[in-house]
Structures are given as structure tokens and as C-alpha cells.
């Protein structure tokens, strides 16, 4: 019986099927950060339990971390949360990449970087963007704090098998159009609940042509379409990534060769069935810009702000509310929208390739005087790499701020926040009301589009700059 990539990984991780039909699924890797874990560790303490597999657990701090002076955390509550993670990792013998480590960074960036994310694994984290790791052909999804505690205590999760959906991306992207635009287009088509209950497999020649970092951007935003997880079958691009650089958690030598032999068996068999299939041609896809207050409210850069009655996947009233919050008028060309802030960062788009592509645009250009641009590398390793390549100097010479690694203005839990009414071109993943600061207005775009907007002071079709 032919199987999908998802079914192969699922079946291999079934510990038991319980009498009520629930599957007990084994978890290969548990990533932990400071925000969603303290109550889980406290639960273990109260019940006198330990962490079952500390070696499968890996922690870092990212959400609260200041990106300028990281060792002086002024907010006492943030500080307490960071100290709680230090204590918990110490007490329960969990490896922590803390603020003094050059391996610290956004949890979804350091997993792959350290080789802790490998094909065929099940990976969970108390964070919805855990779907990122699916780019390696892993089953990876976000969980709440009760489930974090469950995994710490048992290394398993109680799960109902989700449905499966295949999304075939076809064609060749134009220059200046990215995997960020592909995933924004998909969410725009299906809506933010369109994939709820499904695990997605992204396939097709347009996916095969992407680098690992570009694939991670797509899988990262699967959750914005409601999906439980998003996956891409591993191939030579995947294996080359795992084999490259210093990845202490990844196998090496003969062990790697044996692993790759197994990983080659993971892709979906011909004839395997999905519960739903669809295909999107991306050859003519223009850069995408979100205009509203959820990641399904998206327009072509060549288009205009829609009329509320033309918005799909929400009521007219909800669309009107979104337009009011965003301070936008239907019919306005997207390229007429002026911005005052640019955020280049987040687990979606803060890897070295993202920074290189942005720097290539900024070389010999300046950030507009009306714009504040914040560049926040996704990890300390990305920061060091960028500095070794001189990218930091390009950003600073152009007038952008160059920071230390963290989640930063993606969710504004640290001091990097928008003020009410400020309008941001952001490479992050969510444009919810207040997400980047109360009253702030977020437009989701690719790194190329964000950088071009920083220079022009308003959105431009970055294809014209290529």
C-alpha cells in the first residue's frame, strides 16, 4: 500500500493505539523556550516527575530577549522568565543555549542550524511556528504548555491522526519573487482556517528548486493557514544542508551515509492518496503584500486595496474592521502605501540567505529618512556569519540598525515595538492587530520587498529593481 511522507513518519512513531482510538506518538526532539515552558516544569515539580529524555530536549531563550543590550534586561518580569528557564534547565538537566552562548537564537532557526532537526523525525515545541522544521521532511508541530509538560514527562503525545493535503507548486518564480510570496499566496487562496485539521505536503518543481532556507520559510507559515504541520520531502538539497557546516547534533561519516540511505525512503510513494490535493502555478506570481489583520488578507504588489465586499474568507464587517485598523482605503494602489518602519527578522525570514538578499539590495542605497529599519538576525550564528561577510556594515552604512538575535518585533515581547499608528513592512509571519505593538500596523512581505520599501519609503515592485 503506497504511503505519503506524513504516513511513513506517523506510522514509525506509533508507540501504542489506546482503546479510545488515540495514538500515543513518540517525539524525537522537543524544543523548549522561555515563554511556554515555566508552567510545564512547575507541573513536573509538583508531581515529583523528571524529564524522561533530557538528551532529546533542547532549550534556548528568544521571545523576551532584548536585541541591543542583551545582558541588561530592564523588565523584571521578562528577566524572571529568563531566569526561570535557566533554573529549570539546570534542575532537569536540559541543554540550554542561553544568552552567553554563540548557539543562542530563535528556536526554529537553531534547530536546523545545530543539526537537531533531521529528516524523518517528530519534533514539537510550545510554539506554533514549529511547522518550520517540516522543511526537512519531519513531522513538526506546535503544542500548548500542558502538552509540553506531557512530552517532558513521557516523551510522547496523545494524538488523533490529522488529514492530509498535497499542495503542488508549479512553474519557475520570477526574479525578486520568493518562497514567502508562495506561502502568502496559498494562505490568501485558502484563508487562515483553510488548512485546519490537515498536515500539508508541499511538492512540485517550484518547491524542488528552493534552498533549505527558502523551504523553511514556506513550512514556517503553514500554521497561518491553520495547518497542523507542513512538510517537504527530503532530497539532495536537504542532505547537503545536513552534511554541511558544523552541526553537532547531526550524524557524520558512515552514520550520516546510513541515515541518508534511510531518508531516501521517506518521500511519498507514487499512487499514495491525500485527503485533498491542489495545485498553484507560480510562474506569473507577483510579490505579495498583506493589507489586513490576518495573513489571508493579501494583495499583489501590482494590485489595490480591495473593497470589503470583495474580500474572501471573512465577513464584510470583519474586512471593514481590518481596513479601519490598518487605516487603508479601498482602491489605493499597494505601491502608494508609505511605511515608517521595516523589520527584517523572525523565524520566517532571518536566516543568512535572507540577510544576503536584503543586503544585495541595500548595497549602494540608503534607507529613506522617513524610515527606521531594524535588522535582527535569527541566531547568533547567523549574526556572526553575516558580520564575517560584511553584511552588518552594508546595513549600518545604509542607515539600518543591526541587532543581536531574538524574536524581537515579530511579536514585540521585548522592547522592539511599534507605536500606535506606525506602519511596518515586516518579514515576519503575523499581521494581527497589535502584534508588533498596540495600535501598530503590519504588512507581511519578503525580505526583498521589505528592503526595497525601506529605500523607497513606500512599497515598490521589487522585480523592477532586479
Amino acid at each position, binding site marked *: 500500500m503506497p504511503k505519503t511522507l506524513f504516513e511513513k513518519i506517523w506510522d514509525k512513531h506509533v508507540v501504542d493505539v489506546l482503546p479510545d482510538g488515540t495514538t500515543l506518538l513518540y517525539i524525537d526532539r522537543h524544543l523548549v523556550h522561555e515563554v511556554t515552558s515555566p508552567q510545564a516544569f512547575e507541573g513536573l515539580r509538583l508531581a515529583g516527575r523528571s524529564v524522561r529524555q533530557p538528551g532529546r530536549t533542547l532549550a534556548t531563550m528568544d521571545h523576551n530577549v532584548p536585541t541591543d543590550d542583551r545582558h541588561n534586561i530592564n523588565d523584571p518580569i521578562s528577566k524572571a522568565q529568563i531566569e526561570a528557564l535557566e533554573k529549570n534547565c539546570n534542575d532537569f538537566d536540559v541543554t540550554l543555549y542561553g544568552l552567553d552562548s554563540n548557539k543562542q537564537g530563535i528556536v526554529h532557526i537553531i534547530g536546523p542550524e545545530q543539526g537537531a532537526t533531521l529528516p524523518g523525525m517528530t519534533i514539537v515545541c510550545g510554539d506554533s511556528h514549529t511547522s518550520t522544521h517540516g522543511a526537512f521532511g519531519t513531522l513538526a508541530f506546535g503544542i500548548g504548555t500542558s502538552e509540553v509538560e506531557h512530552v517532558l*514527562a*513521557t516523551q510522547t503525545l496523545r494524538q488523533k491522526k490529522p488529514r492530509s493535503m498535497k499542495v503542488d507548486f508549479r512553474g519557475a518564480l520570477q526574479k525578486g519573487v520568493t518562497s514567502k510570496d508562495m506561502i502568502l499566496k496559498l494562505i490568501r487562496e485558502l484563508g487562515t482556517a483553510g488548512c485546519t485539521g490537515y498536515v500539508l505536503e508541499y511538492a512540485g518543481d517550484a518547491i524542488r528548486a528552493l534552498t533549505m532556507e527558502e523551504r523553511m520559510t514556506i513550512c514556517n507559515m503553514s500554521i497561518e493557514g491553520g495547518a497542523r504541520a507542513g512538510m517537504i520531502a527530503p532530497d539532495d538539497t536537504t542532505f547537503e544542508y545536513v552534511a554541511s557546516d558544523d552541526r553537532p547534533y547531526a550524524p557524520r561519516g558512515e552514520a550520516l551515509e546510513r541515515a541518508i540511505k534511510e531518508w531516501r525512503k521517506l518521500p511519498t510513494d507514487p499512487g499514495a492518496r491525500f485527503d485533498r490535493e491542489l495545485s498553484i502555478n507560480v510562474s506569473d506570481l507577483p510579490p505579495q503584500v498583506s493589507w489586513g489583520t490576518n495573513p489571508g488578507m493579501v494583495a499583489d504588489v501590482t494590485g489595490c486595496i480591495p473593497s470589503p465586499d470583495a474580500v474572501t474568507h471573512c465577513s464584510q464587517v470583519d474586512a471593514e474592521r481590518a481596513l479601519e485598523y490598518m487605516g487603508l482605503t479601498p482602491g489605493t494602489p499597494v505601491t502608494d502605501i508609505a511605511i515608517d518602519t521595516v523589520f527584517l527578522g523572525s523565524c520566517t525570514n532571518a536566516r543568512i540567505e535572507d540577510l544576503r538578499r536584503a543586503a544585495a539590495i541595500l548595497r549602494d542605497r540608503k534607507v529613506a529618512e522617513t524610515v527606521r529599519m531594524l535588522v535582527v538576525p535569527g541566531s547568533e550564528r547567523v549574526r556572526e556569519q553575516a558580520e564575517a561577510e560584511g553584511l552588518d556594515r552594508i546595513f549600518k552604512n545604509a542607515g539600518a540598525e543591526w541587532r543581536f538575535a531574538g524574536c524581537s518585533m515579530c511579536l514585540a515581547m521585548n522592547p522592539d515595538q511599534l507605536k500606535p499608528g506606525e506602519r511596518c513592512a515586516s518579514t515576519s509571519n503575523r499581521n494581527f492587530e497589535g502584534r508588533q505593538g498596540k495600535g501598530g500596523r503590519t504588512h507581511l512581505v519578503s525580505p526583498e520587498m521589505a528592503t526595497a520599501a525601506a529605500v523607497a519609503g513606500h512599497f515598490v515592485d521589487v522585480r523592477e529593481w532586479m
Partner: protein
Amino acid sequence: MQSFEKHRGIIATLDRANVDTDQIIPKQFLKSIARTGFGEALFCDWKYAADGSLDASFELNADRFRGASILIARNNFGCGSSREHAVWAVAQAGFRAVIAPRIEHEDGSVKAFADIFQNNASKNGLVTVELSESEVNEIFNTVTTTPGLEATVDLVTQQVTLHTHEPVIYNFDFDPAIKENILLGRDDIGQTLEHESTITAYEDRIGETTD
């Protein structure tokens, strides 16, 4: 967790779709390392005006919804981040159940609740009731025209009753495994650890740990 068999209380409407977890509990409250104290922060950015007073234009601030313990909203409630703080906030603000509509399309149905939120709710005894779009429309209309309307959510019979002059009953589906846990107020971890020997056998079979 708190068990739930049947609950009667005032039903309040929140006429919005895609209510995301950033709205349910804004990020500044996620810094707490406690499991309690989130109720006051529920819908904080909508609930309070800039000067800190209650914003009269936010429908849940209406007098007639004071003390409400059942919430009804539109589709895709709880989308966004995995923060369980969102469920804690809803429950600690006094709500025992949330009702939302699934939406039928030609390509299948769109679920009423976001996946992770619904999962988190099930671990905290917060009952998520999925009804059809027309049923939810009907309830919105009834609540609007009946100030102080009470409803009962009965998990045993899987029914929502609106206590209008002639009571109106709506049936709902509910996952049997989760139902049993919530009815008994049973936590997962203890149950899973009853299978510890099976987990150990699995670990022996896969052979290694990863470091």
C-alpha cells in the same frame, strides 16, 4: 483539570471571525511564570480604552453580558500562536464553554476552532462546541433579541439549550476520548504513564537516544 458535565449561565456574543490568540491574550501577559491571573487580561486590547477605562464599544463590556459564562463567536476562534495562556484567560475570566461555527464549502468544511487552541482547551476542561453556521446565526439573533438569555451546555447529552420561553436545543458532536477526560476531570500524564512499559519497549526498539 476542572471536570465538566453540564453548565448553565448567561451567553455572550462576540461577533467576530478569526479571533486570534494575540487578541485573546496580548503578549505582554505571557511573561508570567504562573498558571493563574490571566482572566483580567482577556481581550485586553479590545476591552480597555487608551485611558484604561472599559471601552463601551466592545460588545463583551455590555451590562447584559456581565457574569456571562458561555461565549459564542464566529469561525476560526483561537487562531494564531500556541499559547495556552489564551485558554487560561478565557477560563479564568469565567467562561466554561465557547461556541463557534464550522463552515461548509464545496471543498470540505472549515473547522470552528483553530487546532492548537482546541487541543489546549481540552486539557483545561474548557468545552469547545462546534455548530453549523446557520445554528450559530440563529443563536446570535436570539441572544441579541433576548437580554440576559441563559444557555445550558450539556456535555453528557452533547446539547446546547437556549432558555428562551420555549427552550431551543442544538445537538453537537464531540470527540469521545476528550469527552471522557473532561467529564472525569482527568489529566493526561498520569494516564499515559500507565503505558510506561510500552514507551520503554519502543525506546528499546529504536535503540538510541540522540546525544
